[in-house]
């Protein structure tokens, strides 16, 4: 692990993502600034809020005609804006990894699980096949797969959703990345499996000092899992706070979202609904950098 511990791992200033269409320009992300240190940062918002596009922009995965602009996008001293496609590949998967929502669509269906993970490892490390196999089995064990030898030889359709997601996490973590971007990594999983997968990621953050950008629509989960929360609405950051203080959020959008959640411990006759105000789109966003 390199870099100065007091500086954030990732610093983004004034990031915008736009998609021109025939009739207008869709502004998916509008001038946002945030940072991620060796901590768990939750990016929360509803569908269309720009949270996924933010993660993809950091990874350099927005393709033309999409336009990415930023005043600053720096990862561990590297200016991400100026990287060539080849240079980005050196970083992507190796130093910044991403776990997607659904393992079914992220794993190669015609390659065994073990070969896929070992391949991911060898691409980044030039390790020998036997070394890659050994590391893969170790990694499968680290994500609490009980029978790593069997799972190594299994095809993706032969494993459950929860195990598939653990396999994805193993594959993403094997090169020992500094930053993990997890886009709704557990929303397709049962709640108990979800907790187990989160515990694995949690331990890795605290043990390896990894940074985590946790993209989610689930406010309760983010409040209980992350250190810091960034709330996005219509491509902007409308609020940011310590996760433990989310219940005391001030922005009417955040408050509205929290109030619309049914709760087991707090019965209500009628759920409050969110009245979206035009002003939220035009008011200046919040800077979510901690420097």
């Amino acid at each position: 692990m390199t870099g100065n511990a007091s500086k954030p791992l990732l610093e983004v200033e004034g990031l915008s993502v736009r998609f021109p269409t025939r009739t207008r320009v869709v502004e998916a992300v509008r001038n946002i600034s945030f940072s991620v240190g060796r901590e768990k940062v939750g990016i929360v918002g509803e569908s269309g809020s720009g949270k996924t596009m933010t993660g993809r922009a950091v990874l350099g995965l927005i393709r033309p005609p999409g336009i990415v602009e930023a005043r600053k996008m720096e990862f561990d001293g590297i200016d991400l804006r100026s990287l060539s496609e080849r240079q980005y590949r050196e970083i992507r998967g190796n130093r910044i990894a991403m776990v997607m929502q659904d393992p079914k669509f992220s794993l190669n269906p015609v390659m065994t699980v073990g070969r896929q993970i070992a391949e991911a490892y060898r691409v980044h490390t030039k390790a020998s096949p036997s070394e890659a196999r050994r590391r893969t089995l170790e990694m499968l064990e680290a994500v609490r797969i009980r029978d790593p030898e069997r799972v190594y030889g299994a095809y993706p359709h032969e494993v459950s959703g929860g195990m598939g997601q653990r396999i994805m996490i193993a594959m993403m973590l094997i090169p020992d990345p500094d930053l993990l971007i997890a886009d709704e990594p557990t929303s397709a999983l049962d709640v108990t499996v979800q907790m187990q997968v989160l515990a694995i990621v949690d331990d890795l953050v605290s043990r390896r000092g990894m940074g985590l950008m946790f993209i989610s629509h689930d406010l309760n989960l983010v409040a209980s899992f992350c250190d810091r929360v960034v709330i996005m609405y219509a491509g902007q950051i409308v609020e940011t706070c310590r996760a433990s203080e989310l219940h005391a959020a001030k922005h009417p959008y955040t408050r509205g979202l929290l109030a619309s959640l049914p709760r087991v411990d707090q019965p209500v006759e009628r759920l409050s609904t969110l009245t979206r105000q035009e002003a939220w789109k035009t008011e200046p966003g919040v800077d979510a950098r901690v420097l």
Partner: protein
Amino acid sequence: MRASSEIALQQAALAIEHLDVRFGKGDEMVHAVRDVSFAVDRGESFGLVGESGSGKSTVLRAIAGLATDWTGRIAVEGQNLGPKRTAAFYETVQMVFQDPYGSLHPRHTVDRTLGEPGRIHGVADLDTRIVDLLRDVGLGPEFRFRYPHQLSGGQRQRVAIARALMLEPKILLLDEPTSALDVSVQAEILNLLQRLKREHGLTYVLVSHDLAVIAHMCDRLAVMNAGRVVEEMTVDQLRRSEPSHRYTQQLLKASLGYDRAAVDALETFD
């Protein structure tokens, strides 16, 4: 358990006794639902909660006639159901599915989607009925000739609910009706379902993986795991954190949020 009393069964809107549902044959056979019994009173909301593969949706599909290989007893308004569903059944029981993106025909307008059950069952004055239904689910008449791709997820689910109400059913089977929606939209749809239930005197059977949604909507619930009902209780008991089965306790705890210490204590139930 109310099912023990035959009188209660006759009065129930829906009674399930010793339901078993299987898929496939021989070595490939999956025994998805095992000996499930429960009864739902008229005007009640009954919740089925469980994780994926617990059989909760299969119970609904067996009632609706979509899973055909079942044994046991399913009675609607005191009438036992046979293997085939009749037209009269669909005038009493209707279903709303999880994914409003998948349950509406992409090339049918809202008008055609709502009109179809009406035409099949010979509903009188269909034109007025469609406009009334749209208003009932909070959509203006301008939505009538739109296609699903011109609607948001919440609007689509409103259309699916309107379609289910076309035949003025008494019982709605709701299979994860809000799990594909954002939380603010979920609140709107749950409020809509509560209002419709009051106005039309409906009985609900709601399947969800979300204990908070079940607690908000229902009076009683059954917790399912691996095809069986592990526990049946009232929502009040759930709110007082009184589930007696360890599986339910674990589900309740996990649904309250992430707790690193609690994860190591998780058990597997098969």
